[in-house]
């Protein structure tokens, strides 16, 4: 793969029907960049989460709107921007600080942005309500992420797997 930046664009209607097209698109590019299966999965899930947010929140469920996924790939990193032209939001107010507290509240949603932040190397927001809202996800192509080493099944939160009852 040349060192020049390669650019891709995918636009679909803002409907959950097409999340698999989006995951495949991003997955194929990430794989062609040399990311290990493990990292391809992380990138796919992050992009799915960002697009699910556009479908659910940006246009309040209206289906005649678009999701735009821009991908830029070079020798160093993969950058995916998910763009909507909906109502926008305040990303800093959506932070999940304490996962333990979160789980104890049995909340049903609010995990998408948290997941994205855990899975990607960098996450940026550019919010201009009803003009253009962009979430930019960055993953670096370092050795670790392209080697495809198998991690242990050890919790990164270092807790026992089975809950005592």
């Amino acid at each position, binding site marked *: 793969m040349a060192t020049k930046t390669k650019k891709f664009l995918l636009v679909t209607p803002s409907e959950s029907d097409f999340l698999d097209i989006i995951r495949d698109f991003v997955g194929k590019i990430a794989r062609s960049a040399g990311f290990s299966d493990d990292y391809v999965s992380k990138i796919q899930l992050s992009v799915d989460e960002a697009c699910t947010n556009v479908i659910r929140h940006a246009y309040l469920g209206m289906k005649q709107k678009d999701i735009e996924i821009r991908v830029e790939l070079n020798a160093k990193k993969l950058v995916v921007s998910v763009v909507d032209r909906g109502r926008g939001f305040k990303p800093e107010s959506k932070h999940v600080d304490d996962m*333990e507290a979160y789980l104890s509240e049995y909340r049903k949603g609010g995990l998408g942005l948290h997941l994205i932040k855990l899975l990607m190397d960098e996450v940026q927001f550019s919010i201009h309500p009803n003009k253009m809202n962009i979430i930019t996800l960055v993953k670096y192509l370092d050795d670790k992420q392209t080697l495809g080493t198998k991690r242990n099944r050890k919790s990164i939160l270092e807790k026992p797997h089975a809950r005592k009852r």
Partner: protein
Amino acid sequence: MSEFSVHRKDMDEISVLNLDGYLDAHTAPSFEESLKQLVDEGRFKIIVNCDKLAYISSAGLGVFMGYIEDVRANNGDIKMSNMSEKVFKIFDLLGFPSLYEIVDEEGEAVDKFSNINS
């Protein structure tokens, strides 16, 4: 469209939901429907067998969160089994193993329900 299906199997008091395919925002309602059905029927001892679950996003995780409180309040539980490494990683990343019982094989989950009964 994401491919996904749920197959239900009842064994005495226990119900097993076998998930197959991709559980995302598009398919989560179908899983939710299956869980709701069990709760409506008063069947609270639930095993979700993830053997064929290829993918899960937070929309799928949200379905588990939406029913666990109700199920436990009725002396039941939602236990998960046969999760692939890939799917487990996501549950693990979010700390779900501290809230849910995740076992290797469906049989173990059955045993755990039975031990409570005896």
